[in-house]
């Protein structure tokens, strides 16, 4: 099973539109509920068992090669802008 920390998962979920983009300049706090909802959304989208936590199946898929475009295009503010 590939290793992925909770921070790594958070970055992943943020990168692909399930969580708001991380902003190092602000002390953005992701609650357990927000994280669980994001994991649930990801699992649902990817056709995994929806558990709401980082189980092995979810972590494995997060480590798989994939397209860099967000799954949820409208979910964050940076989108795919050339600006």
């Amino acid at each position: 099973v590939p290793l992925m920390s909770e921070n790594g998962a958070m970055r992943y979920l943020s990168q692909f539109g399930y969580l708001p983009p991380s902003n190092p300049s602000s002390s953005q706090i992701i609650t357990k509920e927000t994280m669980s909802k994001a994991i649930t959304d990801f699992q649902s989208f990817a056709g995994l068992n929806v558990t709401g936590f980082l189980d092995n199946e979810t972590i494995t898929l997060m480590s798989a090669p994939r397209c860099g475009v967000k799954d949820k295009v409208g979910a964050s503010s940076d989108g795919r802008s050339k600006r």
Partner: protein
Amino acid sequence: YALQGSRWRVKKLTYKISKYPTLLEKKVVDKDISRAFAVWSEYTDLTFTQKRSGQVHIEIRFERGEHGDGDPFDGPGGTLAHAYFPVYGGDAHFDESEHWTVNSYRGTNLFQVAAHEFGHSLGLSHSDIKSALMAPFYRGYDPDFVLDSDDIQGIQALYGTRTSKIGGTDTNVHHRTTASPTGEEDQELCSDPKVDTMFNSADGNTYVFKGDHYWKLTSDGVASGYPRPITTTWRGLPGNIDAAFTYKNGKTYFFKGSKYWRYVGGRMDGDYPKDISEGFTGIPDNIDAATVWTGNGKIYFYKGTKFWRFDPSQKPPVKSTYPKLISNWEGLPNNVDAALTYHGFTYFFKDKAYYRFNDRTFSVDIADPAFPRATAYWWFGC
């Protein structure tokens, strides 16, 4: 399938491979990229022509790490490639750090990844159907690849079904090469092309508002059956609208005087009108135009000689450094009538003419023919 919300207005598209991968022969790459485009042209009237130089619709590059778009690649594995939707230009970037292969179970199959990325270039988002090409995860080399019915439905929702081997139209309101538009000219717009506002709807259509009427634009002019009264589609909305835009939430905002209205499609989205000062604190009344930069969600309002940037995610949404002078942006006029974001550019309309603004150079584009150009000819098919 999922549609991002933008699509190409032309069916004959061109592409260029500006930067090839180092470990594959150019002709091999050319062939696989061509095959990848053919995945989509097989089911639509889209055609894709490779060019070696000059302007193209879709630029393809193989790059490592940070490569100028703020979205760096991460080395082998992880993200393999990314592409821009039509509204952002359609370009496709591939991570040069991957081991790109052709017809091999080893490495990462170029054809399959390219076909997926070109789906984005054409307006498709990721699908939650596992078997779809537009699912986000790489599934390994499939020697018997066929496009999933989910992908076919998606691309045909954008571009229609294939009607012939030579399909589509090569006229485009911004790249028109023929002087004679098909169909009848619109008398009202052709005799006086000054408009109140122009905007894109959530479903990708472009509309023109003037007085109490509106028109839908097509790739070569105005759609037949227009103009129509604004109230037939947007019930409760007055005429002589000042400005409009569709936000990334799919809702369309209309502005007039000190008021604004919000619609989802043709349905008013709650109790409107409301005061601009209430919903858009920091923005003045009686604005000239508004555009939304879809990438970062910031909204630009224009009035007279000034513009304001409104960021809904910030408090206050308008920074104290605004308003700024439109003249800071080289070549743009003051007192614009309308503004529209289209295919990654912002277009400004004033009286009978329009300007294409390049946000990378922060100036009006230098082009032949030069801007400003005639709105009637290039947009309304006159």
